């Protein structure tokens, strides 16, 4: 190998290493994925659903947790859970991995905190099974997609 080639290779290696450290959500394992949006609840709620759709998922339902609480006489700020998934993927996965049926569709909770909004979900890595590379690929994509959705929400004003 010529000298410039060597330098190039070594730099390439460092670059890859450094990209690995920079890409959020990939190089580490936060158990919960949680961000603060500086948007008010209604704005954040609209953006969340839009971001989920843009990332290629279908929003299947929005559970209004706060409504049930208020009706039962408890005081609470806005609190929703958004369910989503890819229809074909969910059908395929629930057939192949029956235990995932308890966790699908995927979900993200969103609640108001003053003028800000908190968006939180469990890192899908908690669903992984040792030695299952196929499932791991799906889980990694979920993590990356959710990370992208949350980053978008964090950066919106």
């Amino acid at each position, binding site marked *: 190998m*010529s000298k410039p080639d060597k*330098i*190039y290779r070594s*730099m*390439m290696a*460092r*670059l890859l290493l*450094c990209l690995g*450290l920079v890409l*959020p959500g990939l190089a*580490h*394992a936060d*158990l*919960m994925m*949680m*961000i*603060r949006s500086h948007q008010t609840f209604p704005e954040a709620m609209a953006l969340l659903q839009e971001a989920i759709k843009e990332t290629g998922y*279908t*929003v*299947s*339902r929005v*559970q209004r*947790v706060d409504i*049930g*609480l208020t009706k*039962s006489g*408890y*005081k*609470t*700020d806005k*609190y929703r*859970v958004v*369910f989503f*998934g890819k*229809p074909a993927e*969910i*059908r395929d996965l*629930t*057939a192949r991995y*029956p*235990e995932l*049926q*308890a*966790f699908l*569709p995927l*979900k*993200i*909770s969103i*609640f108001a*905190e*003053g003028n*800000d909004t*908190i968006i*939180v979900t*469990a*890192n899908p890595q*908690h*669903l992984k*099974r040792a030695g299952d590379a196929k499932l791991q690929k799906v889980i990694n994509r979920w993590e990356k997609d959710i990370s992208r959705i949350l980053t978008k929400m*964090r950066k919106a004003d």
Partner: protein
Amino acid sequence: MQLRFVLPLFLLWSVCQAAPDGEALYEQHCAACHGSEGLGGVGVPLALPAFQQSVDDDFLHKTIRLGRPGRVMPGFRFLKDQEIDAIVQHLRGFVPGKRAAFSRQPVKGNAAHGKALYAKYCAACHGAKGEGGKGTGVTFSRPRDLPIIAPAINNSGFLASAGDAMIKEALMQGREGTPMISFLKQGMTEQDINDVVAYVRSFEKQPPDEKPIEFEKEPLTLVYDSPHSFEQTVEKVKQAAVGMNFRIIRVQTLEDGLQAKGEENSKQVIVYFCNFQLLNQALAVDPRVGLFLPCRVTVVERAGKVQLYAINPKRLSVLFNNNELNKLCTGMYDTYVTILEEASL
């Protein structure tokens, strides 16, 4: 090898080598709980002058690295020292001014006397064993008695981060703007305070209250076979849930909202149920927990076999790093097992 390949790579490489951006790291990892300006939320406030003036950088650095096991605040083991230092500098930017520096010398005191004083003056807020106040941070979204929850001072992360001198300072000066008052002003002598510090330090040797849940040993889901038909099983789940004081919220196919009407798998149904008193209680312990509520049991028929699936609340609780939630989730686990057993009897 051509220069036009090397140059952009070199530029990228040097960007990567640049000093970590404390503000960006804080926004990414901390702001969700502590607020972008450090005013608090699920986490305690970090921008109070009285707090900033009574802690040193080493305490902040170690707190970020170790977190507070079982008290919501995660440990950031994957961050580099430089990155943590950058976050500390960003925190310091909330309140410009003089910084505390503490000796790491132990404070000598009579822990037995300190124990009596602790029970009298501290336990009401910090808990009988130093386990901290109930709930987290300053959460604005629900009403509560104290504006800021008293931290757990028996916590391994706290005790490893705070030296005796820092704990003493908190007792001598209090934290103005928080419920933590100066005990010198309350009439304690400096020796009394030393005794309390010695007692707080002794928490390090106190055996933990409860065994932590072992994530790896808990199954991901609770699965039961039902001897009944699919329809009967769904009915039995509803009855069992109602029998345990839950209200049925909705029965729907798992694919509802995903597949077109009529295209859904009708032999894969979710029964959602809720007890609003329990939900309210759980949200006060951890506002994030709504993620796993309302409760649900999924009933499935595949190849003539009917099965019930539910999450395992004990395993999920581990993700939240919240001891108090572990207790609730252990109770929820028993409830789920009862419902699943009854429905598949």
